């Protein structure tokens, strides 16, 4: 136990680094995923094909391969940058496919009758979109999007395993191999760090889910 207390600063920094990685990756994947989802529901067939291909490729490819590709493949293409950003890129690409599916299923979950009824009572396109379709779509998007983001936090540990220094999982290597500390307490500290993020996030998601639930 004293090992965790003695190195609490390192753990805190690791936690903050993980949160930073997750923040960047969340912003990136939410934006990219929404764009891809827009592609997938758009009336233009080639864009739909791009969206479908994107999701199929990235959902079926292990995150490890995506990360390896970004970290070692992209430099071969002449793309240069810090390792940190390659890792974020990999995480964003991978997560965007899941974000896209969450958003798309949310939009599709709105029954067509809702929009039809809105038009039937004389609402304009903007009114029916902003008053009828989007409020329902956003509500049904929130819970799956939340699970996707929690999964992303957990996936960010793989980024640490790849050697992004200072990330929470990466802290473990520093403490055990460099300082020769006992393995078990160090690992338990790392585990506690992730639980500190994922469990409150899960509880919060449950609360939000109940709040926004739509009865159909």
């Amino acid at each position, binding site marked *: 136990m004293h090992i965790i207390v003695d190195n609490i600063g390192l753990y805190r920094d690791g936690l903050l680094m993980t949160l930073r990685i997750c923040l960047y990756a969340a912003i990136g994947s939410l934006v990219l995923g929404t764009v891809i989802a827009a592609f997938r529901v758009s009336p233009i067939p080639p864009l739909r094909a791009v969206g479908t291909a994107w999701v199929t490729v990235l959902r079926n490819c292990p995150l490890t391969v995506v990360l390896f590709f970004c970290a070692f493949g992209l430099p071969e293409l002449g793309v240069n940058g810090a390792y940190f950003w390659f890792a974020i890129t990999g995480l964003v690409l991978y997560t965007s496919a899941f974000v896209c599916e969450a958003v798309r299923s949310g939009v*599709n979950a709105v029954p067509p009758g809702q929009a039809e009824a809105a038009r039937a009572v004389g609402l304009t396109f903007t009114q029916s979109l902003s008053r009828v379709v989007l409020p329902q779509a956003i509500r049904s998007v929130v819970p*799956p999007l939340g699970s996707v983001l929690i999964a992303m936090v957990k996936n960010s*540990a793989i980024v640490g395993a790849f050697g992004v220094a200072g990330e929470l999982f990466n802290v473990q290597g520093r403490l055990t191999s460099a300082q020769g500390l006992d393995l078990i307490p160090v690992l338990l500290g790392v585990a506690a760090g992730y639980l500190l993020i994922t469990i409150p996030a*899960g509880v919060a998601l449950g609360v939000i889910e109940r709040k926004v639930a739509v009865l159909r």
Partner: protein
Amino acid sequence: MTTSVLFDSPGPRTRRRILLGSVVACLALAAVAVFVVLRLRAQGQLTEERWGPILNPANPYFTALWTGLGTALLRNAQAAVLAMSLSLLLGTLLAVTRVGLPRWARWAVVGPMELLRGLPVVIAIFFAARMLPEFGVDLPLLWYLVIGLTAYNMVIIAEIVRAGLASLPRGQAEAAAAVGLTPGQAMRSILLPQAFRAMLPALISQLVVIFKDTSLGFVIGYLEAVKITSIAAQQLHNPLQLYLTIGVIFILINYLLSKLAMSVERRLSRARRGPVAPPADDRASVDAALAVAGTAGG
């Protein structure tokens, strides 16, 4: 089922606009493709030296590379099948225990389950590989990977099975009790078989997730496909090409698995309705299964 809430079915003018949009999109895609190819060529990525070991059977490295990758992929499959079977077994046990316990005692099962679910799977694998030896459990690397994957996935499978059990009509359990089956017998021979049928697609989706996660074996030095690829990339100096190849292999395998999940789902929903029922509205059950798979995936 292409009706969208977002727009009406297009009239002649909109159809022209869509055509125009399609042409523009195709041109943009072609431009991107040309740019990528030119870039690849400029960086010397399209040479025989880079692709030969992967594509040219006459290349001296070709046989060694593909034998290595093939063996490694079999190791992935082995780990995935073992982890899937064990998680299925333990997950079902967990789900049944959870349902069977009185309400106040459930936290004893739910607590550890939530803890396991909150941990990254890569950490579960790493824990298994580093902690078990400290307690004197010495196993081949494969088993550490399997144990780590199982610890994480059995919880998810328990949730899938629980959802499956919850989706059954109450009358099933009541009828079983009425004909004199004990709760255990009812669970074994009436409830679980039906729950599994309903959950088969979600279970296959989880198999895809597990198969992808076997590539995390690289963290503990298990010689699975991604690890082998990285070793090969160091020797052949063509990381871009090799990671592309292994990515395509994983995508193909998992794509076929998810197609299988979908066709199983279609067959099940047809069989459930019987030949007399109208073959309409397959969507609801597909969506329900996807919703379950969605919470489990990622």
